[in-house]
């Protein structure tokens, strides 16, 4: 129970500081918007073409936005050595990860849901009928990006050349999540929309495996 209570307190802190500064949300929303708008000019977004390219493009923009969002996640804790204060205060260091993971997933999901209507209009795809299923795929995909992303953010924050380190570690690892998320989104945007349980299961499995690894080894990532 202490783990959940600490996580709730820390998640509250993450949300409060972000909504006060709006540093991450503004950057990522603008970044995704630029990519989505830019690509809508490069090819004729007919329904057929959008179904072929749209999901990949969408997840690629989410991935780049996520790497922008994840970078400062632990870096911000270094400004005033607040990570040390957290480590001295929490009963279980996993609560620090859980709170950051929750905040990252929430911010990412919020950005994605904000971008969906714009994507639907610019790329001429219908998402209203499959919106709940789409949100489920976005949630599992975002969680899949955020779990290793949060872990690697903790590692790279203590490294030299940290700006290079995070994408270098993260992008190869996220390839399976991207493929599964793109395939699952593709299924939902197809002429006959279908929720691809196989890819959804893959995403859930990926999330569980990496969350367990973070729970087991996360404490060591926070050590100096």
């Amino acid at each position, binding site marked *: 129970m202490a783990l959940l209570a600490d996580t709730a*307190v820390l998640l509250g802190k993450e949300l409060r500081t972000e909504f006060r500064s709006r540093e991450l949300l503004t950057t990522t929303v603008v970044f995704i918007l630029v990519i989505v708008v830019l690509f809508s000019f490069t090819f004729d977004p007919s329904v057929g073409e959008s179904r072929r390219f749209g999901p990949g493009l969408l997840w690629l923009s989410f991935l780049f936005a996520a790497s922008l969002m994840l970078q400062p996640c632990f870096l911000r804790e270094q400004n005033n*050595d607040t990570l040390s204060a957290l480590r*001295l*205060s929490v009963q279980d260091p996993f609560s620090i990860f859980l709170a950051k993971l929750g905040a990252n997933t929430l911010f990412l999901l919020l950005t994605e849901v904000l971008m969906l209507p714009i994507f639907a209009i610019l790329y001429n795809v219908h998402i209203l009928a499959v919106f709940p299923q789409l949100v489920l795929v976005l949630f599992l995909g975002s969680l899949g990006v955020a779990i290793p992303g949060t872990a690697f953010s903790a590692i790279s924050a203590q490294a030299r050349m940290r700006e290079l380190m995070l994408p270098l570690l993260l992008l190869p690892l996220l390839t399976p999540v991207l493929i599964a998320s793109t395939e699952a989104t593709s299924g939902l945007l197809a002429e006959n929309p279908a929720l691809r349980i196989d890819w959804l299961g893959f995403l859930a499995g990926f999330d569980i495996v990496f969350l367990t690894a973070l729970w087991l080894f996360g404490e060591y990532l926070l050590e100096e």
Partner: protein
Amino acid sequence: MTAPAFAPTGIRFENIEKRYGGLYALRRVSLEVAPGDCVAFAGRNGSGKTTLLRIAAKLVRPSGGKVNFLNSGGEETDLWAQTGFVAHATMVYDELTAEENLLMFAKLQGIAEPGARAAALLEEVGLSERRGSLVRTFSRGMRQRVAIARALLNDPSALLLDEPATGLDPEGITWLANALRRMRDAGRTILMSLHGESEISALATRAIRLDAGSVVADTRARSDMHAILTFAGA
């Protein structure tokens, strides 16, 4: 300061060693700090002062040796939870108010009635009127007061202070010295790393000089303390 509700804590360092690759930050440091002692660590940058304090705070894992916390009878005990740590970085969030910072850390530490404790400490450090202001709007001295208040949340019996006077103006140093004097007089054990002599170093009952990760001088004599604290490069 609030009435002490803590058991006096001593700290024993046994053969503490810390290596970063091939570089030794600490070389088999052994020393014992008695409950209620106020120890000033001096030494050049990189001599191992910060590493030793961070090991005592359990923020850094030693490569060898161990740290034990002792009760007033000199027996090993699990009193680590009753330590407070202040670094030269403030260890509080600029984007939160002073009150929000203290409230959050109080909740994380499982302190009963966190709101009342935060309010009492803000009063104690003279920041009651600015409790709703974001920490980023504070001066360095005010931030350090919030840092001290955070370290006192659990009413610690031992305080670890890593260059607590960094960046403080003379007024801030006087405030900090008075606050530390009250804590020392209340029976708290204090370990602090310092650069040179000041009102704060005058509080020390013992001075230890570190050089290249080893203890090279250790005294309780006031006259020798001056030499240790003002050693060239200290």
